[in-house]
């Protein structure tokens, strides 16, 4: 009984992250459904679940594969991608490096290798080739390395890359952030239901290879069509817009089919990644694992400088999903209170009556 109370107290602390990153600021009307479904499926706070999985899978020198990137104006040019995804990937890469010593290897379409690299640099990680990143971990001079490599659009090539990576590197976890997932027919759909399979790198190939080898996997999304949502495919079928395809089943709808071990649904996919970083920082009790407001600003400005567009407004700028820079900065500012930055929880805790209560609880736990 005491342990139940203890675990629910822990969960309440982490629940706050979930609640913040799922407020429907753009009033898109989808996140409530996605979050409830994911929460029912996993039975505990989503960011906590994801962060614990990553903490268990990764340690110093181990590799985390992070797939992201959405080429979202393919009828114009394959070089155009959106600002939701890359910042989340960079923030989580940074958190996993700072917190666990992991080596992040980010997988994006070859057209956006350069832009993604710029975003990683804005987050503080120097991008080099994967083998070089491994060497940097053991070298004498301080360097915080990461790698950005091309994720093929061709399924077979992506499968070969996955095998190659898993053979060569000590992969401890796989994460997909705002990455289109394949439905049962192997098609990747936009949230509006359009077929965008040809434009995107096939992250499902990497996901499947990781699962086959028991590597823990996490998907982060905001619309229902991203990798990770396969975990709640049945719960979304018929309830999410465009989840049913032309054949009357969910086989060719927007919801992917592959399952992951963890799933984070957030109002903006980037925020889901920030939430996982915050949860990891809380688990490790290291505020520095979560990026700062200043870094957030640098990252979003780097996105704009690199030509990423806001997928909703279509403008190049430091906004994401139609939400201006300030909104993202304010969100990060509030997330930072969860790592005791800007909040004096000690003052509440140190009230004499509360100290007595805590001491009594500790006594109970000891028994």
């Amino acid at each position, binding site marked *: 009984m005491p342990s139940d109370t203890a675990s629910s107290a822990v969960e*309440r*602390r982490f629940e*706050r992250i979930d*609640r*913040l990153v799922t*407020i*429907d*600021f*753009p*009033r*898109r*009307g*989808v996140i409530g459904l996605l979050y409830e479904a994911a929460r029912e499926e996993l039975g505990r706070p989503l960011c906590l679940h994801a962060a614990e999985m990553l903490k268990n899978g990764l340690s110093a020198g181990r590799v985390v594969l992070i797939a992201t990137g959405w080429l979202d104006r393919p009828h114009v040019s394959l070089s155009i991608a959106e600002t939701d995804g890359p910042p989340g990937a960079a923030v989580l890469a940074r958190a996993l490096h700072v917190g666990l010593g992991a080596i992040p290897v980010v997988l994006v379409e070859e057209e956006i290798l350069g832009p993604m690299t710029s975003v990683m640099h804005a987050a503080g990680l120097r991008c080099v080739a994967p083998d070089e990143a491994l060497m940097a971990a053991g070298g004498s001079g301080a360097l915080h390395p990461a790698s950005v490599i091309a994720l093929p659009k061709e399924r077979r090539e992506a499968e070969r890359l996955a095998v190659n990576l898993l053979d060569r590197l000590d992969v401890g976890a796989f994460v997909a952030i705002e990455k289109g997932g394949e439905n049962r027919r192997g098609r990747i759909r936009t*949230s*509006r239901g359009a077929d965008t399979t040809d434009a995107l790198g096939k992250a499902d190939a990497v996901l499947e290879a990781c699962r086959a080898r028991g590597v823990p996997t996490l998907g982060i999304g905001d619309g229902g069509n991203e990798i990770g949502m396969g975990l709640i495919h049945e719960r979304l079928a018929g309830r999410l*817009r*465009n989840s049913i395809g032309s054949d009357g089943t969910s086989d060719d709808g927007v919801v992917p089919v592959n399952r992951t071990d963890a799933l984070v649904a957030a109002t903006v996919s980037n925020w889901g990644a920030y939430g996982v970083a915050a949860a990891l920082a809380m688990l490790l009790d290291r505020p520095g694992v979560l990026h700062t*407001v200043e870094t957030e600003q640098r990252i979003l400005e780097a996105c704009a400088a690199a030509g990423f567009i*806001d997928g*909703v*407004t279509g403008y190049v700028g430091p*906004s994401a999903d*139609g*939400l*201006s820079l*300030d*909104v993202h*900065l*304010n*969100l990060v*500012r*509030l997330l930072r*209170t*969860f790592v005791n930055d*800007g*909040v*004096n*929880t000690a*003052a*509440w*805790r140190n*009230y004499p*009556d509360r100290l007595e209560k805590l001491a009594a609880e500790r006594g109970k736990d000891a028994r």
Partner: protein
Amino acid sequence: MLAERQDTPDLSLYECIDRLLSIDFPEREVIDIAYRAFREYYGLPLTYLAARALASVERGQLVLIATGFVNRPKVDTIIAESDGPVGAAVLARAVHVGLGAVPVLLVEEQIIPAMIRILHSCGLRVLDLPNAKKCADPSVTMDAAAILASPTDWSAAEEQARTLLHQESVGAFIAIEKGASNPQGEILFSRGRICTPTVGKIDPLVRLCRERGIPTIGIGDGGNEMGMGNAGGILRTLLEYGDPKYNGGIVPAQETDYVIPATVSNWGGYGLAAALAGLLRNPSIMHDEATERRMLAASSFEGLIDGVTGTTGTSSDGLSEDVHAAIVGLLRTLAGDGLDDIDWPGRDASRSGDRS
């Protein structure tokens, strides 16, 4: 008026506001309990219900806003906290800008100087009540508020309440972070200590407003404030210090018509302003981050303390100035500022119609 409300309104905005106000950033472990209990009882977003009641106020009517907590009485009764007055100023501004109402603040005498400076920081000139009333006329082009001293003596408070309601046209009453009497006639701090003598008494005013059908709203964060006794005093059994063994329990006896429990009482005021902005489709009803920082600085200059840490800095309730500014920024976003008009596939056309 009625026709507007016939079709089921989209309440997602108010759900978002409620959610943002009720995340337990400081880990005080009250808000989860209080919000859930009241939300279950009222059934709809709490900021929506309160804003809807407030929106019934007519131009030129008074909106009475009671606040102020003298919270180190053992040291000196001049010491009061910044949580409350800032939210009250935001609401004063909101009802003036949004409704053309005359905001009248009720605070303990010694808090009046601080309240003046905060209202000035918020854009409202403090005037005597007769002059403040002139400013309800938009052609006067003057943003103003009035302040009345709130008596700590029960009979003086009763007398003031009767006179006010007899002489003035009062459209609504709001209490924000305002202690109220428990069933034993004592006003308590949130952890059960008695502070009855130092608190301006507003219970009679609330009772008389309700008798006259004037909508009353209570905003609080600890369980001991006016409004927290709502839903039949349900918090009495849910909060640790609601237990009568603590000097009769912290939960007030007098109920208000509506309640907004928030993580920080000021935020409840901001949330109500944001909800009113949403309801009236006028984002300028909600104050901005620069104004927020100015008000917190004014609180500091006037010696109001952070009630948790005991410092006169710009923090409030143990949370730094930046945290309050971030909350204000996000509420402004919800109220319609800083959000590009978006054509999400899942959303019906009603929202774009929301925007002018």
